[in-house]
């Protein structure tokens, strides 16, 4: 993914409140978030700033394309770039929706028990979507089956019925910032806990639970 070619007179920065990002950096952030989301077993922190900025970027590009018509080559290249960005963004959001739908009671519970100041895994719109999904499904099950069942069985606790994300699943990662003294709990009881260091640039296959906080902080990248 290259930077915006200059000749269309593009001058934008997809900046958030604190940091000013070049378009290239923004897209890199998007791709990182996308890959992390794809390979993590649970729903990760929501990144509304990235989504907003990328959408802005796409709108910018569309404007420029519309203005600079008929110059086929530049237009084609920009349209191709737009398609690619749109694909990555859509794929990222789809991945999140899929996880939301798959783990909806747990996602909602996590949001309910979240403390103020802790980052949320759901954007406000995703939260609304999740609540609607839960209500829709509960209503359906109640009307079609549960209300016809014996009185003591009419409540199904979806939180217990729907499986949780498997945080013990293994993931591949690349280390971006050196980490020391990561405590690893082995699978079998015979081995004791041991401690490892993660060198910058190294790649590992490790249980997700061990490094979950490092994904959130950006110290490692799932691949």
């Amino acid at each position, binding site marked *: 993914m290259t930077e915006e070619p200059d000749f269309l007179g593009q001058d934008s920065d997809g900046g958030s409140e604190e940091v000013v990002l070049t378009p290239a950096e923004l897209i890199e952030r998007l791709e990182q978030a996308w890959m992390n989301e794809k390979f993590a077993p649970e729903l990760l922190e929501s990144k509304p700033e990235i989504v907003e900025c990328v959408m802005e970027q796409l709108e910018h590009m569309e404007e420029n394309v519309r203005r600079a018509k008929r110059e086929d080559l530049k237009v*084609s290249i920009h349209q191709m770039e737009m398609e690619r960005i749109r*694909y990555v*963004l859509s794929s990222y959001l789809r991945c999140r*929706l899929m996880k939301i739908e798959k783990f909806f009671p747990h996602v909602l519970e996590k949001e309910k028990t979240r403390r103020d100041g802790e980052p949320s895994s759901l954007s406000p719109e995703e939260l609304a979507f999740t609540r609607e999904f839960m209500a829709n*499904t509960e209503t*359906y099950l109640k009307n079609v089956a549960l209300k016809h*069942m014996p009185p003591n069985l009419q409540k199904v606790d979806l939180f217990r019925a*729907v499986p949780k994300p498997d945080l013990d699943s293994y993931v591949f990662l690349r280390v971006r910032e050196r980490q020391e003294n990561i405590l690893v709990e082995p699978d079998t009881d015979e081995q004791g806990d041991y401690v490892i260091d993660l060198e910058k640039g190294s790649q590992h296959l490790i249980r997700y639970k061990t490094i979950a906080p490092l994904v959130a902080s950006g110290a490692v990248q799932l691949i």
Partner: protein
Amino acid sequence: MLRKGGQSRSGASSPGQGSVLLSGTAAALARALGASANGNPQEDGLRQVLEEMKALYEQNQSDVNEAKSGGRSDLIPTIKFRHCSLLRNRRCTVAYLYDRLLRIRALRWEYGSILPNALRFHMSAEEMEWFNNYKKSLATYMRSLGGREGLDITQDMKPPKSLYIERQGLTVSTGMNLTIIAVISNSWAEAIHLSLVRCLKDYGEFEVDDGTSVLLKKNSQHFLPRWKCEQLIRQGVLEHILS
């Protein structure tokens, strides 16, 4: 999601009664999930399971009363067994219904907001209502993305990867010409935004990017922006010719 019922552990008879095939129907329901992709909702099967549950519950109620007042503690194992059957029936039923919902959900992503009639036929009224609520919820979410009209994330399902075909000076006469030109173009430009598609059925007017519209008649061929025709390709109206 809720794990399927698995093999039937039925066939046991409760003491003092004729043999009752417990949970057999429920397990059959769950097994029906594996069989058909989008069959009709097994309304009969569902009803049978619910009736069986009612019967089991009533038997249990009377036995519980007997056990308490008549001191018949020998009935307790049977009561427990029936309760387990009830729980299992509920689990199979809910698993079956939920799995159907997941398949219906997949239909929204495959076919778009409007389902082909053949599929609608296989859905119960409540399932249809669930589907409508789901697609409304999804639409609200998609519209909220970004500043303006939102982003339709049911598009762009595949990474862009088609051939670049020069728009001007190309006469579309036979497939042969196109192959040659495509091979030449491909070698220097991987950039793509147009696909060659053939129309499989009469569709009518279709608007493209610059405001012009194209008449999609059966067997006509067009160069169309790839992302615009994705959904039509999925619905079977257009067919991608070169890829």
